[in-house]
């Protein structure tokens, strides 16, 4: 088991390194992208651009430039933005990360609870009225885009009704959990619900399909022949085996969202998270910030996948030997 974990972690490190090289090449070695010109500004003379190029080390060989970049990003942590001169990349990300993590953590708890409950209830009541009802609600939640749902929620809670029944809803923004845990939850309540609704719908539908498949397996027939109750068969046998696909799905979604994929929800609710930071840096082609954000996002995707793989080994004994 320990060997498995070590192997998985070292491969995660390797993947991180490859991603950093790839991203570096895409943004700094693609023909037509000249970082020096961007740093020097719009009306810079060729001499100034050449000066800048030399001052930032942009005239040196690519591997050296990669090393300098990584040194500034990870070790000195003083990589600065090319656009907002003076703004450091790492503190910016460190400031945005807790907001995104708060948003995604809360939402993921909600969608796991609702999605798993929905999937199990639907699978247990196949062919009855409640099954298609849950599946319809699921597809409806999946179909509604987050920015639309978020805007509607804002319209209701911040609009005309804000003075009556929704007067307890704070205006949009973020309050740190260390500052005031209650306000933190209150500010994030509707963002959580909005972000979770899509994923709850997906998870309920995926889990139902997995459970229906599992319930047709031979081992479920064996479990019935053993004289186990339907509830025990559903939870301890069918659900336990379906959990493996739910966990892998969750790892991918969670990693991607922490890495910035919750952008739309962040924009709608005015949460200055990593998604928003990535988005604005892309608009300005602010290369160091893009680099930082992508590395941050990749880190969480890789981390989530490593955790999922290790979780797999706990859930599925067949993986442990592999």
């Amino acid at each position, binding site marked *: 088991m320990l060997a498995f974990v070590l192997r998985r972690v070292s491969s995660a490190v390797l993947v991180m390194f490859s991603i950093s090289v790839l991203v570096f090449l895409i943004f700094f070695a693609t023909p037509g992208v000249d970082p020096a010109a961007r740093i020097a500004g719009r009306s810079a003379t060729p001499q100034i651009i050449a000066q800048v190029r030399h001052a930032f080390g942009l005239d040196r060989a690519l591997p050296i430039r990669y090393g300098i970049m990584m040194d500034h990003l990870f070790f000195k942590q003083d990589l600065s933005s090319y656009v907002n001169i003076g703004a450091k990349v790492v503190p910016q990300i460190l400031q945005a990360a807790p907001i995104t993590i708060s948003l995604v953590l809360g939402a993921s708890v909600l969608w796991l609870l609702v999605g798993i409950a929905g999937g199990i209830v639907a699978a247990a009541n196949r062919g009855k009225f409640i099954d298609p009802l849950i599946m319809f609600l699921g597809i409806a939640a999946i179909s509604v885009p987050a920015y639309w749902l978020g805007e509607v929620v804002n319209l209701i809670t911040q609009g005309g009704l804000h003075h009556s029944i929704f007067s307890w809803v704070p205006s949009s923004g973020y309050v740190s959990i260390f500052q005031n845990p209650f306000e933190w939850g209150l500010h994030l309540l509707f963002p959580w619900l909005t972000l979770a609704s899509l994923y709850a719908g997906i998870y309920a539908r995926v889990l139902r399909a997995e459970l229906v498949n599992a319930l047709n397996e031979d081992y479920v027939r064996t479990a*019935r022949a053993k004289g186990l109750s339907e509830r025990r068969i559903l939870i301890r046998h069918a659900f336990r085996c379906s959990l493996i696909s739910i966990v892998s799905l969750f790892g991918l979604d969670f990693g991607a969202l922490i890495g910035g994929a919750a952008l739309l929800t962040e924009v709608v609710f005015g949460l200055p998270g990593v998604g928003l930071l990535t988005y604005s840096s892309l608009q300005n082609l602010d290369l160091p910030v893009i680099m930082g954000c992508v590395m941050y996002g990749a880190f969480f995707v890789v981390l989530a996948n490593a955790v999922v793989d290790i979780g797999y080994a706990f859930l599925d004994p067949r993986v442990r030997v592999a």
Partner: protein
Amino acid sequence: MPEPLLSVENLRVAFETRAGVVRAVDGLTFSVGEKEVVGIVGESGSGKSVSMYSLLGLLREPNVVIEGSVKFQGREILGLGDDQMQSIRGKDIAMIFQDPMTALTPVYSVGWQIEEQIRAHGTESKHQARARAIELLAEVGIPDPARRVEQFPHEFSGGMRQRVVIAMALSCNPKLLIADEPTTALDVTTQAQILELMGKLQETYGSSIVLITHDMGVISEMADRIVVMYAGRPAEIGSRVDVIRTPQHPYTWGLMGAVPRLESKRSRLVTIPGNAVSPLDVPEGCAFAPRCEHRMDICSTRPSLRGSDHQAACWLDSAQKVSFRNRGHSA
């Protein structure tokens, strides 16, 4: 005559499908006495497995219609609710399935799965159940059971898994064991070992067994009585000696002819002409008539089982049967 352990009367199982009503089992009647081994033999699709699933309530399809009567120890069990069936399944009647590779839940150790059944029907503590599980594994011939009990199904070979399934089935000392083609998915040497094991355990545990198979060789080794099924109907029922030595039904003659014999000089095995009938389209009369070389006009009327101890659903009279059978055997 003492009351049989299990008595199945006129069991009918039908599936309502879009293509029409599929009569998978149509009028199956047989009984199983204490400590008796009854073999049910027939081709694929003859309704052997479906009849067993239906009497245990394991058919979950919403479009299934089950009729008839199944009495276990004199008590009608057909149509019992899930709650009542749960206390019978696994405790009084246990079942072994065809494919041991998929019959166990992959994510739990074999010990866990045996203990689960023991604890579902008894008051044993975890510790007692574990001890019993190890004992059972030893009994079904799994070496080093104290270590193997912790292992997962994927760490066992097919034959070993089937032994685990048998251990699980025996864990609550069932009065009746239904074995649904327990050796079909195994290779030939393993088949023999499993059959030998089942015979041995039947003696020690004293369970009755219903053995489902399409292999006449298996059935002639183990069964006390034989039920031959064709197209969901019983074709012939009788003691092993009677059915093997003096089969009464042309279909049984075909099955017997299809068994390879060492002493025979014949190089080709006898085949039954044609294919098994589609369960969607069973003929009005005798289901076997279209493939039968002795068919007569009367065969368009459905024959019922005739005879007392040795019954067959065939219109041929006994003199005809004797002469046709002898001709078939010497040919």
